[in-house]
């Protein structure tokens, strides 16, 4: 049979299934970063603090948006925060989450949604682990602390810059709120 090579194509529709482009939900990211938490509360930080932070971040071109913040609590009080933010990779938005402990140190970085045609390798655990333990005093620097993934340079660079921004947000806005 001459067209024997076409046979494997028949298996393709069978593989089709509906999955979301979301790799991890916010809830999953919360539970993974704070397994001992009993509750996660959405937090609306003081507008004045957010505005002061945004003014410092803005380079004039694009407006800076505040991340969504969840406060993780155990019976003893605040454990830390999960911050969900977005950056542009090459042309598409990447949704990512940074979990911070009460001292502002990174517990985890998760890529929640990735939409680019190439570069989804930033989801690799080995790449994301480079951020753990960093804080506003020792922010991750792209190229030295955070090594690049060839073929995903812009995604790596922009997520690193986004994490730096969130660390400054923690210091400017959240640091004073961790009394509970």
């Amino acid at each position, binding site marked *: 049979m001459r067209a024997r*090579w076409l046979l494997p194509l028949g298996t393709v529709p069978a593989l089709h299934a509906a*999955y979301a482009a979301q790799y991890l*939900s916010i809830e999953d990211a919360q539970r993974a970063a704070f397994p001992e938490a009993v*509750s996660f*509360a959405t937090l609306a930080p003081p507008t004045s603090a957010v505005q002061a932070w945004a003014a410092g971040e803005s380079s004039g071109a694009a407006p800076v948006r505040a991340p969504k913040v969840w406060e993780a609590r155990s019976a003893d009080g605040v454990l830390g925060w999960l911050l969900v933010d977005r950056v542009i990779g090459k042309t598409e938005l990447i949704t990512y989450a940074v979990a911070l402990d009460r001292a502002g140190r990174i517990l985890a970085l998760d890529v929640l949604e990735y939409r680019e*045609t190439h570069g989804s390798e930033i*989801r690799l655990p080995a790449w994301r682990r480079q951020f753990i333990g960093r804080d506003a005093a020792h922010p991750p620097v792209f*190229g030295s602390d955070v090594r690049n993934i060839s*073929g995903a*340079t812009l995604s790596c660079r922009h997520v690193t810059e986004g994490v730096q921004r969130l660390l400054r947000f923690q210091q400017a806005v959240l640091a004073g709120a961790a009394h509970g």
Partner: protein
Amino acid sequence: MTRTRIAAALAAILAFAPLAQADDAGLRSEVAELRAQLQALQREIATLRQERAPVTPASAASAAAVPAPATAEDRANRDSGTQLTGYAELNYNRPTAKAAAAQADLRRAVLGFTHRVDDTTRIVGEFEWEHAIVSADDKGEAAVEQLLIEHEIHPSLGLRAGLMLMPLGLLNERHEPPTYYGVERNFVETAIIPSTWREGGVALYGTTAAGFSWSAGLTTGFDLGKWDATSDEGRESPLGSIHQEMQLAKARDPSLFVAGNWQGIPGLTLGGGVFTGKLAQGMEKYPAADARLVLAEAHARWQSGPFDVQALYAHGHISDTEALNLTLLGNPTPVPESFWGGYVQGAWKVWERDDSSLAPFLRYEAFNTAAAYAPAPIGLAPDTAPAEHVWTIGANYWLNPNIVFKADYQHFDVDDTKNRFDLGMGYMF
């Protein structure tokens, strides 16, 4: 039947009614007790609610209920789901031995789009003009560089169908000027692995948590019938001269490719790929009816701190060309049996401020587009070509990661009339 059952049930209720009446007082006291317990519970719940007032449980609903302030870019994303993309390169080449041959060329202007149909499906297109003007009297070229549908079957498995870039080497899939060093694309990844190389077909691609990404597909391939033994095109790039680019591509014989990269250690990329397919495409009475191409490559890249080092080796083999080459006797460019090339390159980011940076680089390439020919009768064997060795020294200056200016000097060990000085600029978005 049903009526009988209803009658029996009624009889049972009537029989027990006096018994229920007798127990009435007991039930009343029990209800009063339950009411008191319920009121106590309600008070307790109210107290708890008060204590936990600022806390709302995490759930998908609560996440969705907190709208983030949308920026213009977010709105654009949500509204259309379509992104305009593009890149361009403008080059100036000046041979050192022959200034009259200096040339400035708008090498490529490319516009593309990515349209997200839904969360798991997108359409990608890229359209290219080469050499600025395309008309019957000009040398320009208009081409579709990519046109494909990409569908995510699973977060770590996707399907691509259409005209797609072949994932061999470090350059072909990522060929925008800000992503590589030097004004011109390197020789190995243009002469041995064609560039920009695309084929029509279907492919599966995926990633694993251990850092391995792969793709494999069934595509169109090359057409040996296009080989022109009278021109030197086949000497410059054997595969580049017989590519089909899905222009009425002969598709009797499909080609297969498998490629992969391991990036399990941040900064490191180790990878390789193989492409194979028959080249005669079923042409009748063709002297190389069973000719088959096998192109294989391996590459490595290490990026750490200011250093960026990469190496690649590619080897191509075309079988069953003896009879074909006998029909081409006397022509300058018979079909080679093997061709190969490799390079090592090192770059060092010496300066960086905000988004701008400067990185000098050095690249050494060796390649041979006609390293061997199929055995021929004594006296009729074509002469193999010597391997060319090229040194390229230069620098990339990125105004920002998407805009690059480049300068370099290229030295050819064998044919030093080709030595040249190059300037270039490029962008991508």
